[in-house]
Every structure is written in structure tokens, then in C-alpha cells.
């Protein structure tokens, strides 16, 4: 509307004069920047945002249409000092002038810093950062919740690292905005929702690197409180290695980056495979020792046995050896890839010890008189010996003898 000269004689209707005022204001103040403090901040269900910008002695009504909220990089709050860009217009129905906000910025990094320091101090006083409140993380989580942006390097890295380190887990990804208007609310809500859903062992909340404004959602009070109230342990993994966000202070564990979080939250399966390998080795060694000592005990009994003893007793001892042998075979029958043939080796040795088996293979036990002779050196020519085969006994007289060198 173009500005028209006011006529002193014409009687205007309210609508007419309002329209003229509107035209004048929109022309004169089509593109202004206003600095002041936000108050009476209200977001209607429609999505449109209403607030006032004020200083010590004046105030101006402002409206931020829903469609424009996406271009705002932070969540405005009462008390914040901002610079608002826009056009002055008139809301004719109510007869008020207002700023039609196109863009909103906090006054400077300094303001954000200040807000950060203030909130940090308040929450710390309240006890939200207390070490006593922090929960331990599960060592072998089965279900992990990740609250982050569904696109970008952060989620990709976390999935890759967890997949490599410890695949037997379920990752539940709760996609959220990680910066900009409403991000803090989404993050907080996701934390509450995952807690309601239940069955999750640990949550990572985070994002990749960015500027202070980019990370701002993780410095907001609503996120801090949601982390504090989470019954599920929370790992905060917000981009920067150097800076610590308020989420980092409240969380049960702080990770310098999302990738670091992935490494902290699950064990490395290579380490576990080592432990398992060692366990198998130890168990096998101990068992082998146990079998060995049992075997020695039985062999001693057999060898010290005189042939003058009644046959029944001989059979009894043979049977006990067979029993022990059978039990050991039972164990060894279970071949496990992990043992790589150690079991087979053990079995062969067992077989070689069973006297019955030895005799069947063609060996004999040689007796002279009552004693078992196991060395050629102990025999002289003309000795009368008895040879026990697996199926009988042969008596013979020694005609000649040869011993290995050094006899």
C-alpha cells in the first residue's frame, strides 16, 4: 500500500485509518533489525510463535510464523537477548502494531556463553551433575538405543564400529533433529520415549562436530533434565573433543565423540575370543593332568600284579581300567574345533595305555617267576619265562638275547 497524504477534513472509518497506518508502517519499516530481550514467549498449537521484545522502557509485539521457525538456529526463551530481523506491520483486528519476524539471532556468542555458564551453575547446584547419581554401564549390552540424526557421519560411524567390535546386539535408532528450532524438545522426548518403551540396556545421545550454535540443543535444560531422569544409563557423545556440553555433565558417561562412544559401550570381540581360547586350553590341560594321574595309578596296579593271583581279581582290575578308559573316551569323543586335534592325540595315548588293547596288538607281558619283566637286561639265557598273550599263556626258555647298545 502506498502512503497517502492524510486528509484533515475526511472522516475515516476505523478500518480505513488502520489500513493507512499499516501501509505507512510497512513502508517505513520494511526491513529493520531490533535488539531487545524476549518475554512472554508462547508457541500456539498452530505452530506460530508470539512474543514481545523489550528494553527498559518500551516493548514491541512480535510474531514468528510457523513456516519461518525452521530458519531459526536455536530455541528462543524468555530472558534471552536477541536481534530480530523483520518488517513492522499492523494486526488490524486488534489494532496493534507488531514485528513480523523473518530471522532471529542471539545477540552474540557471548550471550550463548553466558547462558551456558548460568545453566551449568544452576544445574550443578541442583545436583544434576553429581557423581553419586551416575549409573554404571552394562558390560555386555544386548539392546542399545541411539538418539541422533538419521543421516550423517555420526550414526554411520557408530553402526560400523559397533558392528565390527561386538555384533551380537540390537541397535535401536531414534531419529531426531540435532540442531535448530525444536531439536532440544525432540531429543528430550526421544529419551522419555525410549525409557517408556523399556528393554533397552544403554542409550547413546549425540551428534557429530559443529559450532557452538550447532551443538546448542545439547546445552538446553530440557535435554539435561531428560538425561537426568532417564532410568536407562545414558552416554553423551556430542561432537567436540574439547568442549563439554551440559549433556556431557549430566550423562552417566561422557564420550568425546560418537565414535568413541561406540568403542566405550561394547567390548571388543577379539579380546573375548582370546579369553575363550585361553579358557579352553586351561580346561584341557587340567583335565589331561587329571586323566594322566588316574592312568598312572591304574598302570601301577596292573604292573605290580602277580600272576599267582586268582584270575577273578585280575579280571576285576582289567575291568576298572576299561571303565576309566571308557569314561575318558566319552569325554574325548566330543571333538570340538576349538581344540584342534589335541583331543585325538589324547585318545591315542589312552589307547596305548589300555593293557587289553596292547595285548591285542600282539604285545605280550613277560613274567619271570612272579614278576613282570619289562627290560631285556633283566633276563638271562636259560631263564624260564611265561608270556601272557591276550588269549593265553606260553612258557618258554630263553635261548639267546640281544640288547640295544649300552646294555
Amino acid at each position: 500500500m502506498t502512503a497517502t497524504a492524510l486528509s484533515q477534513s475526511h472522516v475515516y472509518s476505523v478500518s480505513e485509518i488502520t489500513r493507512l497506518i499499516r501501509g505507512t508502517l510497512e513502508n517505513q519499516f520494511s526491513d529493520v533489525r531490533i535488539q531487545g530481550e524476549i518475554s512472554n514467549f508462547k508457541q500456539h498449537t498452530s505452530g506460530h510463535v508470539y512474543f514481545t521484545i523489550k528494553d527498559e522502557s518500551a516493548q514491541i509485539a512480535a510474531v514468528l510464523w510457523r513456516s519461518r521457525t525452521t530458519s531459526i538456529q536455536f530455541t528462543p526463551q524468555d530472558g534471552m537477548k536477541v536481534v530480530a530481523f523483520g518488517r513492522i506491520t499492523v494486526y488490524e483486528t486488534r489494532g496493534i502494531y507488531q514485528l513480523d519476524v523473518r530471522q532471529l539471532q542471539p545477540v552474540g556468542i557471548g550471550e550463548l556463553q553466558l547462558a551456558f555458564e548460568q545453566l551449568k551453575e544452576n544445574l550443578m547446584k541442583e545436583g544434576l551433575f553429581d557423581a553419586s547419581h551416575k549409573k554404571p554401564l552394562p558390560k555386555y549390552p544386548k539392546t542399545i538405543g541411539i538418539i541422533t540424526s538419521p543421516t550423517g557421519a555420526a550414526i554411520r560411524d557408530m553402526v560400523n564400529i559397533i558392528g565390527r567390535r561386538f555384533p551380537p546386539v540390537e541397535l535401536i535408532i531414534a531419529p531426531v533433529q540435532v540442531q535448530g528450532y525444536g531439536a532440544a524438545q525432540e531429543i528430550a522426548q526421544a529419551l522419555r520415549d525410549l525409557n517408556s518403551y523399556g528393554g533397552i540396556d544403554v542409550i547413546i545421545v549425540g551428534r557429530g562436530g559443529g559450532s557452538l550454535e550447532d551443538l546448542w540443543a545439547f546445552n538446553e535444560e530440557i535435554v539435561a533434565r531428560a538425561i537426568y531422569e532417564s532410568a536407562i544409563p545414558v552416554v553423551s557423545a556430542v561432537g567436540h573433543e574439547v568442549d563439554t556440553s551440559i549433556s556431557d555433565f549430566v550423562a552417566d558417561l561422557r564420550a568425546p565423540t560418537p565414535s568413541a562412544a561406540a568403542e566405550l559401550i561394547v567390548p571388543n570381540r577379539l579380546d573375548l575370543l582370546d579369553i575363550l581360547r585361553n579358557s579352553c586350553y586351561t580346561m584341557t590341560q587340567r583335565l589331561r593332568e587329571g586323566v594322566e594321574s588316574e592312568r598312572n595309578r591304574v598302570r601301577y596296579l596292573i604292573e605290580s600284579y602277580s600272576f599267582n593271583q586268582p584270575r577273578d581279581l585280575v579280571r576285576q582290575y582289567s575291568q576298572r581300567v576299561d571303565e576309566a578308559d571308557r569314561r575318558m573316551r566319552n569325554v574325548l569323543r566330543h571333538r570340538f574345533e576349538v581344540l584342534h586335534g589335541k583331543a585325538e592325540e589324547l585318545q591315542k595315548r589312552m589307547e596305548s595305555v589300555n593293557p587289553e588293547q596292547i595285548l591285542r596288538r600282539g604285545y605280550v607281558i613277560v613274567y619271570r617267576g612272579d614278576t613282570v619283566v619289562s627290560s631285556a637286561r633283566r633276563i638271562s639265557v636259560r631263564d624260564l619265562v611265561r608270556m601272557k598273550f591276550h588269549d593265553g599263556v606260553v612258557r618258554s626258555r630263553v635261548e639267546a638275547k640281544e640288547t640295544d647298545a649300552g646294555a
Partner: protein
Amino acid sequence: MPVPKKEKKDSFESSLKRLEQIVETLERGEVPLEEALSMYEEGIQLSKQCVEKLTRAELKLKTFLKEVDGTFKLQNDEPPE
């Protein structure tokens, strides 16, 4: 609202704990051979299960969604790009 701790009987963690127990007991060497044999069997079996889990398992990815009526839903996922 506190989340109840589920008793996961054949979870990886419980298998490892039991295996640890068995190794410790066998190392002390105070067990009769019969018992040692059955513990050994159990131990090897647990070990095999754990190795299987670690080498064969594949990461499961799900997306957490909230329906309009407020209920939660898990959707199976492709790995993110």
C-alpha cells in the same frame, strides 16, 4: 519409571560367567575326575556357544518410531548411508 532387569538365562554374559566358574574350579584341582569330566564338557560347550555368537552374529538395526496415537513401533532397517 525404572526398567525391570530381565533375567537373560542364556545370555552371553551369563555364559561367560559360568565358564569363568568352571575354569576356576578345574584350576584349583580339588574336584574328583568324574565331576571334572562333566564340568569340562559343560565348559567346552559354553565356550563353543560364545565363539559362535561372536563370529556368526550380525548386527540388528531397528528404527524407533512413534505413531500418531502415541504407541511405539520398531521398524527393521538397512544400514544408514
